[in-house]
């Protein structure tokens, strides 16, 4: 009798404490509500239904993007590299023809490099599929023939340090920094690596044209990566800690940490505005929803968000939310690229949005 009374009171206390604890957590902003936020009139970009995970834009307004990253091979939809023209935003995004490339294309992060009047596109490729295989990820180099809507294959870079690649930034001829989203080689170990996201196991590799060297190790998830317009500073998104970090590039292999900023959101790819140097990023503002989508229900929608961060000489300033949606209009944004007074927002596997930045307050100092 006494035991049951004790058990009963224990139950009450534990339930009470548990309820209080849950309420306290709820109160401490665990339950994040995404309120709508638009910088101006937005329209879906025609021709994009399988996502546009990463996109990069040239000074003349021509942009290239990776689409179809999450496409399962049985579905019939194809991963592709497409082009979009900011000066004709009502025109649909168009497939780019690959010439001279015989392998399987599943493009992920990309980076543009212009030299001698030519534009090269370097793109992370998962020939065995996203997170499949045991280290077949590679970086492909194409020459972008903009007048012919064609990408002429140049070469493919492979390296033992390339595990599960995510994004890259090119800093010289065939020289780039690339992020390892996962570092484990076997699928089972990769599952474990995902569950133990609290451990800093990810890294950044510098490829000098011939071989790769791990240049930043012990990172909490290495996702988006980019550099300042003068290529003096490197920016990395440590997505598992929701933080943005910056490094001064003293020499290709010598990166000195400068600053870090908690963005409070799972931000994906980083784009750098060539005029202001500000960082624009596409984010997943509600952690459990994007994880649920990726791990359990790929058909579910996830909220979207675009954040702009001020940065000067590697030091971060303020941040502003430019766009937000609970997933009912745009699902799982991963990238945001501004061009003049417009913004392109790409997603993991949904559509893409083209917005006019009429509401952007030019006086807002970041």
């Amino acid at each position, binding site marked *: 009798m006494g035991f049951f009374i004790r058990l009963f009171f224990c139950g009450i206390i534990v339930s009470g404490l548990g309820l209080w604890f849950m309420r306290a957590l709820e109160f*401490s902003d*665990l339950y*994040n*509500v995404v309120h709508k936020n*638009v910088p101006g009139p937005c329209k879906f970009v025609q021709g994009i239904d399988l996502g546009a995970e990463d996109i990069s834009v040239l000074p003349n307004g021509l942009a290239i993007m990776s689409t179809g990253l999450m496409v399962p091979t049985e579905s019939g939809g194809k991963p592709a590299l497409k082009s979009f023209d900011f000066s004709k935003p009502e025109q649909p995004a168009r497939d780019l023809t690959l010439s001279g490339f015989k392998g399987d294309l599943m493009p992920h992060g990309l980076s543009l490099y212009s030299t001698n009047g030519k534009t090269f596109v370097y793109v992370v490729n998962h020939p065995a599929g996203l997170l499949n295989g045991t280290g077949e990820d590679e970086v492909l180099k194409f020459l972008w023939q903009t007048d012919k809507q064609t990408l002429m294959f140049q070469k493919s870079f492979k390296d033992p340090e390339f595990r599960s690649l995510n994004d890259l930034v090119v800093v010289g001829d065939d020289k780039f920094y690339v992020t390892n989203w996962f570092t484990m080689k076997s699928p089972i170990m990769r599952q474990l690596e995902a569950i133990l996201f609290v451990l800093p196991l990810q890294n950044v590799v510098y490829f000098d044209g011939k071989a790769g060297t791990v240049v930043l190790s012990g990172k909490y998830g290495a996702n988006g990566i980019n550099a300042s317009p003068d290529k003096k500073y490197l920016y990395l998104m440590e997505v*598992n800690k*929701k933080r943005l970090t910056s490094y001064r590039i003293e020499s290709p292999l010598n990166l000195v940490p400068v600053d870090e900023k908690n963005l409070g959101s799972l931000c994906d790819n980083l784009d750098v505005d060539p005029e202001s140097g500000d960082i624009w990023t596409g984010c997943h503002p509600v952690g*459990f929803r994007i994880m649920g989508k990726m791990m359990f229900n790929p058909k579910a929608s996830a909220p979207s968000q675009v954040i702009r961060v001020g940065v000067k000489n590697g030091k971060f300033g303020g941040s502003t*939310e430019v766009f937000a949606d609970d997933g009912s209009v745009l699902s799982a944004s991963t990238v945001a690229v501004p061009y003049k007074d417009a913004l392109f927002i790409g997603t993991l596997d949904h559509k893409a949005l083209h917005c006019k930045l009429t509401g952007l307050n030019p006086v807002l100092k970041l």
Partner: protein
Amino acid sequence: MLKAFGVGLLCTLGIWYFNELIKFLDINKVVYSQQPGPCRAVEGVYVPEQGYQGSEDVEVLPNGIAIFSSGLNYMRNPALKHVQGRMMMFDLSNPDEPAKALRLTGFTRKINPHGISLFTVDGAVYVYFIHHAMDEVDSDESVEKFRLNDLVVAQEDQFYATNDYVLRHRFLRTLEYFSFLPIGNVVYYDGHKGRKVAESLRRANGINMSPDKKYVYVAEAGAKRITTFRRSANGDLSKVSSTFMGTLVDNINVDPETGNLWVASHPIGYKIYLKVAFPVGSVAPSLVLRVNVSEGVITETTQIYSDDGRNLIGSGSAVFQNGKVLIGTPTHILMYCECLTC
């Protein structure tokens, strides 16, 4: 011994992992900066050396004149003894002019004004406001002896008022806040007596009414939600819906043209509680939302203004008129913004 150590280690790891998981699940919220257009402080409101501060509840008349309460000493905190309670006005059609204090005639006591409600009848504008008497004890028996926060006038001398908390002592009240108990309520004063018309609310804060007077909107600050009620002619309320806002909602204003709610809130819960407990020196972030509502059900929320506290501390109320937004705070400035996308 080894087993105890093992269990202890597992528990520690489990708690540590759970904590990391919670952090990952957005428990550590970051508030970004966002302005709907150029914003600036209205002059004449925040002059701390003279004890002038705050613009807790703001309402605007159709002609552009905004009336607001200033110098609130919430909880009659001795730390705010120097603060001067004032009723003030600001003209949205002459925004370069400073806000002016309104002179009270026929009332000689010092005011400590909180929620307000404007009521126009026969061309005369009546201003009703909650006044927390500093020296006297509440003597009016027909008003529930809780702590009034805001009110909305339904007819002449008939109004709904919200009761925020029960306990008077400041420290006990802090405990009451963290107990998350649903002991707040809404009372209706019918001109003679007050009676409870909605109970078991988690801290009833801001209150307002739809333009057609059919619906009453209540901010349940303690639950970060807005609860809507259908209103009967005799004043009774029946609940229609409750929508979680994810931010500690304060005052609610209703745009007479669209029926949209303009809600000011405190996006980081623990920060506004710290600000209330230690009103001098601390900073709390701000968040203003426009809430679309249809037949008493919230259909969409849009973020209009957001600040981590460096520009605007603890936004408490917001009004919209003709593309302009006025944002009031309990202890800081009155912010005037142009809204480029509204």
